[in-house]
């Protein structure tokens, strides 16, 4: 079960829009961390994903375990939301 979802995005990232559309279509609520507006959180995104890229979607489960999905990758995102 999903406790919360956070997406790291930027203003110009097309793949971020796709992830948000997918979550909207599945009626998931999520928080957005816009790295253009909050550049001080870039290190956090890097630490979580191991990558200097967005979107990074962090799915926190009810047991506080986290699944991190890098990019617009439905093959990983869909099971992470299950």
């Amino acid at each position: 079960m999903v406790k919360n979802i956070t997406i790291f995005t930027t203003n110009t990232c097309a793949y971020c829009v796709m992830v948000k559309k997918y979550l909207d279509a599945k009626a998931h609520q999520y928080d957005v961390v816009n790295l253009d507006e909050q550049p001080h959180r870039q290190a956090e995104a890097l630490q979580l994903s191991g990558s200097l890229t967005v979107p990074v979607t962090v799915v926190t489960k009810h047991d506080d375990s986290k699944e991190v999905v890098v990019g617009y990758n439905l093959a990983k995102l869909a099971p992470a939301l299950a």
Partner: protein
Amino acid sequence: MSDADKTVHDVIIVGAGPAALTAAIYTTREDIGTVLVERGVPGGLAAVTDRIDNYPGFSEGIEGLTLASELQKQAERFGAVIEFGEVTNIHDEGEHKRLETTSGDMYAKTVLIATGSDYKKLGIPGEQEYYARGVHYCATCDGAFYRDKRLVVVGGGNSAVQEAIFLTRFTTHIDLLVRSTIKASDVLQHDLQKLVDAGKITVHLNTTTDEIIGDPEHLVTKVVGTKDGVKTDFETDGVFVFVGLDPNSQFIKDTCIKCDEIGFIMTDEHMQTTMPGVFAAGDIRSGATMQIASAAGEGATAALKLREYLEARPHPVQN
């Protein structure tokens, strides 16, 4: 599955970039049932391009993401359906085509392949190892990580210069490594020169990109190139690569659809491929000009030609 159980679409469009979406606008306006199958982002490479200044109708230019979104909305307004998945093969089964996809088989009377292309890789040491940890192919996605840092951009065409210009909003300095000479449009070269004069970009002509090197934390620290025959180090925090395009045609390699030596699909003047009833348009087509305006035009042409094909079919499939 029996014929009675399966839905045979009038047309399945593989891809949802500008050629595909334009074709869908034309087909759906003529009540030709149209499904697009997209594995990534509607709009394709146009959607991840910062700004598009040469697409007609937008006197001040338009953001790539906005253009893609508007194209999608326009196609959907007339009834186009976009499904997300990946087509992995196409079979000609006479009355219809069977498309293997990651979501199962799909059937269509005609198919339009408009899968476009992706940015080509350099194929040098370090490129794969540091992918997304300093090596990137999408400035609009990853540029924000290089605020107040140095970058190398590789390439001398429109994409490389356009994206280098975009990246200057973040970086302190960009080394633009160009294998031969700048081939970007005059307008882009003019904009580039202003940034060169301002000290934001240094252009290195006749410079190959040989190796990407990182630190123990596995982040990029420098690029080794050869400039005028001399090995040269370029200290950097990241590399963005825009050195041409590779066709997204791997999924038809086992079909009778003929490609050129690079992998772009060959068509006749009607956009018809060597598999009857299968058309191709946009960047995936051999001889395409790799321009969004051209892709849209090819999409419109393909739509009209596949309509003619549908009308000429001797034994229409009953849905």
